[in-house]
């Protein structure tokens, strides 16, 4: 019974660390939705781009890891801007369904293009960072770094949104879009900046994930649906809600994976999601949809 407890505790702690990264993912998606009112269905595929970027820079071109990270983040930030400018902007004025379809199409396209370009092999950075031992509990260092970085990034973003002019404009535009020009704010420019930040967050998540997971064309499917469920449960656009929901889901997956196989963890999370939809369909913190 004693050993059982320790492993469970380890699972819970791992779950918390995992939650940090999921929270980062949810943050990016929520930010973009809250500001631009568009869901980047292909969000996880942007993360995939980042993961591939870091992989190729580090493994193939022998770029130092930290520089690879920086370039990876920049790449995905740029991808976010390009996504908005060329794909989303043309359909912003038409029915919302078109925005869903166009980003859904990008999911499809990016996955397929990755298969075409990189093949279906699983690729790994090949880093084996040791684990940190606390008594009888082992926590992978990569997970700790990931969670720590995610936390710092989120705090950084929060500060940015609270203290800078652009940050305040970003928060304002989701509350009243129409009068932004009266303040001297160009909505299009805010959208581009938000897209860059959203992409950057995805890129950061990519760096953290590639430390622990293999990258392959379908990797987006591992994190995408979970991120969506987290955001829906927390309330689309609600960054605090998404944050909380991320940790709940991470625990469900972690514990589910502990008692059964990892896929069951996801199934459990989804079951939880469905149940929550019946109980509290407006999301955890109940804001208007």
């Amino acid at each position, binding site marked *: 019974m004693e050993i059982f407890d320790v492993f469970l505790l380890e699972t819970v702690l791992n779950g918390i660390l995992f939650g940090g990264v999921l929270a980062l993912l949810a943050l990016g998606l929520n930010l973009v939705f809250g500001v631009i009112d568009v869901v980047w269905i292909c969000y996880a595929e942007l993360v995939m781009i980042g993961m591939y970027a870091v992989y190729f820079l580090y493994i193939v071109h022998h770029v130092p890891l930290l520089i690879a990270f920086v370039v990876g983040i920049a790449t995905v930030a740029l991808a976010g801007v390009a996504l908005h400018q060329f794909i989303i902007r043309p359909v912003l004025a038409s029915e919302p369904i078109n925005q869903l379809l166009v980003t859904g199409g990008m999911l499809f396209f990016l996955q397929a293009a990755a298969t075409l370009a990189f093949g279906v092999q699983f690729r790994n950075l090949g880093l084996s960072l040791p684990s940190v031992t606390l008594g009888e509990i082992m926590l992978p260092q990569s997970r700790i770094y990931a969670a720590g970085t995610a936390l710092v990034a989120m705090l950084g973003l929060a500060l940015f949104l609270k203290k800078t002019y652009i940050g305040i404009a970003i928060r304002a535009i989701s509350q009243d879009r129409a009068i*932004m*020009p*009266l303040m001297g704010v160009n909505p299009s420019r805010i959208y581009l900046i938000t897209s860059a930040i959203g992409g950057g967050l995805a890129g950061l998540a990519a760096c953290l994930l590639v430390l622990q997971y293999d990258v392959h064309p379908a990797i987006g499917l591992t994190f995408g649906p979970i991120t969506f469920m987290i955001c829906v449960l927390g309330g689309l656009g609600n960054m605090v809600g998404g944050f909380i929901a991320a940790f709940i889901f991470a625990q469900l997956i972690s514990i589910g994976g502990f008692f059964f196989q990892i896929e069951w963890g996801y199934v459990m999370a989804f079951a939880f999601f469905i149940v929550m939809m019946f109980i509290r369909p407006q999301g955890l913190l109940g804001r208007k949809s």
Partner: protein
Amino acid sequence: MLELKSVSAGYGSFQALFDVSLRVEAGEAVAVIGPNGAGKTTLLRVISKLMEVSSGEVAMEGVSLNAVPAHRVIDLGIAHVPENRRLFPRLTVEENLRIGAYPQAARARYPERLEFVYSLFPRMQERRDQLAGTLSGGEQQMCAIGRGLMSGPKLLLLDEPSAGLAPVIVQQVFGLVQKIRAEGYTVLIVEQNIQQVLKVVDRAYLLEVGRIKASGKSADLLASDDIRRAYIGL
């Protein structure tokens, strides 16, 4: 300072303004009065470029606004305080004021501007960290006007400042307008509350169904039989 020359504008096939011409000189307070649906809000939207004119021209200090995009109008010194206040409900009072100073030129002078607005509206300083959505109607109007002042405008456009407010509060709001005037600001107010607004402005235009029907000094308009009969019910 501000001049509208034969401005026509509308929404799709619906024309809201027909051939409207008016001017506001520096230091003046001018009102555009008229009933619901007269086109008053459209008029302000045309000035702040939230809408394009279909014909005619709006000029600020001689500079035509035709090619100016909406978010640059504030750089020309025009600040539009929208109808229904339109504060950002989940930002604090101070954050709402801060975003009023978004233009680069205004940012440099943010601390002084903030102090100025707080000195004008001490209640706003008391409530600086309160979410704007939780303010009372009158306080919201105060905050909205303060936000407009943060950019240090030359011309302040006020869109129906009394709308939706209790009579006592309306008096307070017009008191604020007088205070602003005393500071030397040029103001263009659009209003339905004719009696109150004519007390604080120098001149007024009467807008009916998109056309200027009358204009003149407020004292004259107040005395005019047409106005009294039609709007003040005397």
